[in-house]
């Protein structure tokens, strides 16, 4: 009984993830939701008593395919960064934000 309810919740989650991927406005949102879809699919394979498929889907679907999609997003310049991520990247590249940007950030807060 409980397993049936769990399986129903997983399947509903699958459909919700697929619909959200279809309705996402930006490609980056679609890729991230597709990663979640792959992970839920991996658990569905376990509910169908096939652990081989679960390991392969987790490694290949949620790992490699999503990685390739992210790399494509980078080559197509479609990754949208928010402010915190941009600052973190500047710190990693050892570029201190200019005085103008610091003032902007202070005013925004």
């Amino acid at each position: 009984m409980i397993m049936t309810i769990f399986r129903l919740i997983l399947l509903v989650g699958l459909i919700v993830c697929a619909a959200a991927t279809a309705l996402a406005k930006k490609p980056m949102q679609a890729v991230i939701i597709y990663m979640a879809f792959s992970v839920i699919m991996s658990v569905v394979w376990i509910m169908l008593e096939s652990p081989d498929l679960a390991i392969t889907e987790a490694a290949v679907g949620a790992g490699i395919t999503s990685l390739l999609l992210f790399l494509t997003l980078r080559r197509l310049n479609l990754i949208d960064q928010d402010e915190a991520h941009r600052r973190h990247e500047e710190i990693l590249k050892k570029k201190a934000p200019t005085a103008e940007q610091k003032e902007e950030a202070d005013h925004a807060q």
Partner: protein
Amino acid sequence: MPNEKNLLRRWLNGQVDWSAMLEQQQTEPPKAAAPYEPHWDAADARRAVRRGQWAYTTLAVASCLLLALFLLLTVANLPPYGSDSAPTVNEVAQRYVEKGTEETGAVNTVAGLILDYRAFDTLGESFVLFTAMCAVTMLMNAPGRRRVRKLDQDIVDYYQDPIIRTVCKMVIPIILLFGIYILLNGHLSPGGGFSGGAIMASALIIYALVWGGERAAKAIPAKTVRIIVLCALGFYACSKTYSFFTGSNHLPSIISTGTPGRILSAGLILPLNVSVGFVVCCTMYSFYMYFRRGDV
């Protein structure tokens, strides 16, 4: 008209009279310009797109609904979910489960299925992976140090971050070991060539991500990757040829199935798992490097 070559020297020497030239040009009537006829303007384009859009949307909606309807009709006529009297549960599955361990030596029935009873399909699938790697190489290969360095420059240098660096130093060998464990235990427990190879590939990808593309290219050169893939595919083809040859001619083969449950058993399944794992690992790693850098 004065000669063009001497014009500058004569003008510098004050010998050119511009007023005469201007008067000459004013007497000639200007030629009428040819009318400009654009053969594709914006209004035409918009009209064509809108007309085609309407037809396309109607056809697409109709075909989607029709397909979904037919598929649901098929699902309604399928045997009930989880029934054991379905036509798919027949003597084929019975033979695979009952005689599987005895004939192949593998405890994992699915591994024995894909690498012994139906090894030809797995060979075809390895060839699909190899073909995809060749195709991605042809599409994305852009060698040449300037182009490769330009693509590398946009990537954030994760080596500067101390947390990532330290954690990856500890974690990459563990991931590699885990991948090798899953690979070698394909015939005893869930796992096998595909998942083990993908996990080994992710260890190599983390290394290339943190230490940079150039160090990864030095540590895992392109020639090594290609030689490993070719040797693995060749070994799979040759060993399975021997197995098919002895099997179909009812000859005894030197490869014995061994005791089920031990690592060195199940005949050819362990070496075939290893070769499939290597093919998958090298293919996934080269996908990553070609997408990121343009060169392995």
